[in-house]
């Protein structure tokens, strides 16, 4: 016969009336219940509801740790109540404390409002449409080897229980942070070997690399991974996503230079005209930006050549001077047009002004530093 224990359950209660006025601040209520070693916390709650207080409110469904309904905080740790046993978590004084998940509004007792995390998951566009050449092509399964699939095995295991949102200190501070669950979901669709050519892929990366609502808030505390009941490792997914995001952010401008067709979404993609840059102020901005980039390139080549021994053009003082100023002005122009174009972009995601300004000042200081180093190299310190 299984041994039983009499346990005191300290359960956080919270109720509000329909007109949204609080009856009381959340408070703790104690219940006593005899439980055997096969009783999960959820079963204990169900018994309490049946025997003690029918108004005790919590969510549950599958009772096998798959549906993600029963997330709550037991003895300070976010868990699935159906997957842990009372005897395993009991404290020395024979009590178990049960609270609702943190970082989200309470609806009643242990039931919380998970709509914000769920909307964050929606915002990363967890879907794709493969571009197919013709519409009436019969549908085929996209091949994927077990090795390719293994890359997403962890991330696809997420049951959207939102325990990680409850554990995440960053999300607790800043509700703009996309959060571990949504990050994992974004990573799952990014890392999948299928869906490579989907339009959503670019938008998703743009979205998560933009400063607001993006992934950069994650400070790698790792609490999300330690509470995840499905070993999804959202912290790892977020770091991998950061790498993907950085590469994306770095490659994007390069792509723009090489494929002038994608310079501006308002451009007719298949029909770029010679005077596309006169279409509007933004296209002009792009034009100036790319033009100044050519100036910088020339400048850089000139200096690199001049670094060789003996320097190529030492006797052409005036030419060197000219090229230096030409390059420096190009660099300035490039930075300014960069900043200016950034402000003009209205298609999502529009990076925030402070972010752009930071980039701008960074760039300018970078240019000045490089120029100083090169000049001092050529002419000696001044």
């Amino acid at each position, binding site marked *: 016969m*299984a041994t039983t224990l009499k346990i005191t359950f300290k359960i956080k209660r919270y*109720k*509000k*009336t*329909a007109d949204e006025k609080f009856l009381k601040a959340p408070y703790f209520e104690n219940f006593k219940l005899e439980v055997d070693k*096969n009783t999960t916390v959820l079963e204990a709650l*169900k018994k309490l*509801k*049946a*025997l003690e*207080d*029918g*108004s005790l*409110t*919590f*969510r*549950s*469904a*599958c*009772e*096998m*740790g*798959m*549906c*993600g*309904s029963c997330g709550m905080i037991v003895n300070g740790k976010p868990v699935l109540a159906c*997957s842990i046993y009372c005897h395993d978590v009991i404290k020395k004084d024979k009590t178990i404390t049960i609270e609702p998940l943190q970082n989200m509004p309470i*609806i*009643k007792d242990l*039931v919380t*409002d*998970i709509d914000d995390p*769920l909307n964050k*998951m*929606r915002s990363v*566009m*967890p*879907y*794709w449409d*493969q571009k197919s050449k013709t519409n009436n092509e019969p*549908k*085929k*399964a*996209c*091949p*994927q*080897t*077990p090795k*390719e*699939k293994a890359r*997403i*095995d962890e991330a*696809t295991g997420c*049951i*959207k229980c939102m325990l990680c949102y409850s554990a995440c200190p960053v999300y607790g501070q800043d509700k703009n942070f996309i959060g571990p669950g949504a990050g994992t*979901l974004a990573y799952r*669709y990014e890392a*999948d070997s*299928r*869906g490579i050519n989907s339009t959503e892929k670019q938008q998703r990366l743009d979205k998560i690399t933009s400063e607001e609502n993006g992934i950069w808030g994650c400070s790698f505390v790792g609490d999300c991974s330690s509470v995840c009941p499905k070993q999804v490792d959202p912290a790892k997914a977020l770091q991998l996503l950061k790498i993907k995001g950085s590469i994306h952010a770095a490659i994007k401008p390069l792509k723009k230079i090489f494929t002038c067709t994608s310079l501006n979404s308002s451009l007719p993609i298949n029909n770029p005209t010679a005077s596309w840059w006169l279409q509007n102020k933004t296209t002009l901005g792009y034009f100036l930006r790319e033009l100044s980039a050519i100036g910088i390139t020339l400048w850089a080549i000139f200096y690199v050549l001049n670094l060789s021994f003996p320097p190529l053009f030492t006797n052409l003082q005036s030419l060197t001077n000219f090229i230096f100023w030409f390059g420096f002005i190009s660099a300035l122009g490039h930075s300014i047009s960069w900043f200016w174009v950034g402000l003009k972009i209205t298609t999502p995601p529009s990076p925030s002004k402070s972010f752009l300004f930071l980039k701008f000042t960074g760039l300018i200081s970078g240019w000045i530093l490089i120029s100083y180093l090169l000049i001092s190299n050529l002419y000696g310190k001044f």
Partner: protein
Amino acid sequence: METITQHDILIIGGGAAGLRAALAAVETNPKLSIALISKVYPIRSHTVSAEGGVAGVINPEDSLEAHAYDTIKGSNYLADQDAVELFVKKAPLEIIQIENWGCPWSRTKEGKIATRNFGGMSKPRTAYAADKTGFYLLHSLFERSLKYKQITRYDEWFVTKILTCENQATGIIAIQQRTGQIFAFSAKAIILATGGAGYLYQFTTNSNIKTGDGMALALQAGVALKDMEFIQFHPTGLARTGILITEAARSEGGYLLNKNNDRFLKNYAPKTMEMSPRDLVSQAIISEIKAGRGIETPYGQCVHLDLRHLGESLIKEKLPLVREVAKTYQGVDPVYDLIPVRPVAHYFMGGIDVDLKTATPLKGLFSAGETACLSIHGANRLGSNSLAECLVFGNIAGKTTAKFVDTQPQNPTLDQTQLKKESDRLAKLRSVSGPERVAPLKKDLGEMMEQAAGLIRDKKNLEIGLTKLTKLKQRYQKIGLSDHEEIFNTEFLAYLELSNLLDVAETILISALAREESRGAHFRTDFPKQNNRQFHHHHLITRAPDGLKISLKPVTITKWPLP
């Protein structure tokens, strides 16, 4: 309830069937406004617990004919063969469609969708995603549905009534759990995809949300329920909790052993052994237990499922969830230990009577998924046919309704007296007081159903069951609630669900009593033989003023005559 929310299509249920219907409707006509109403967040629907896989002919060495024949044979020739033919034709397309949407199917080395054997299937044709197929499927569908702004989700809304007017379904009444407010919806078409009613039984693989709401709603709206006596008992539920150990455990090579460590199925089905259809395996287990060859456990007599010879790596790769739940919920590790299992209530073959286009006789009302009955499962469902059914007929329901609403110029007007009556009824029920409580009554109902309409039935027990049911219904009237809040009142919902369960229970008992033969999942000790001459037909149950009425419907035969 002054405002009435209007949509073109209302889909009730966010499981595999409901989500698939929503996606089909929006992709058929992106201009439609679609409501997806579910009493839990769609990702919490019980589809999430499905483990084994989805059947469909995707291997070149397999054939549609073979799938159809296996299904019909498995159904004990009670399936409608035109429905089965349509089903097997569409199932492979669905598997590929879901793949295209991102479902992480398990793969062969070459990168093709892998398939496994399943009970009653003559070829490996069950596509799977480890042993969490339902979970991956449901989340893939849900994530896909996030793409469409046209689909408005009403998460945690509980539907209490289908409104009708002149033989047409016009709308519904639903409670928003978060506020407790009651709302009316009107629509040109309604799809019921509310899943089964397995929670009716005490020992079940189904969760507390599977309360047969859709079946009860349809019955009240005057629509017939079909073949309600056929309830599948899965052979391998974990002895203590009833959590499912998927059939995949046997298809990957697991053995069933009795007390003497004998693979006892050799005495019942020497050819197919552990891979026989579920009705047969479950009944074999019960016979073993009756013959004294069961294993005594604190939870009753069991048999053992042996996976030890499969090895850790196979179990890890193909049956991770089996290992996880066996460890967590039974304290045994299948790599080293035997798993105690016993038959457990699992699946409703019967349900709302619909045609090949998923339409009910009530204009504007459609149904798909476990709650509907076409029938493709007849007297016994083959494992992995039901998720495929949810996809195939969910899709058909979505397409059919999308076309149907085109023929309807505007939303029907709701009958105000019906509205008033329902909101008054709910208001009254919310504040009932009395000596009885919801939970103990549900427990008694579950025990009654196990005894009267369990795996083994006879006239006497069924009749006792009916008498007990009348008593339970009387007790229901005396229930008092201790939670009178409006916001998120789960006790009140359980109270409403219990009423639905009582309604469904009655249809089961009456149909089971009327079928004086044994066929598939319906096993009567007083009529142990299949009787094709008298009982090769479906049972339809409808509500009449003086109680439930039973009528007969012929089985459609196309290519496969009775043997």
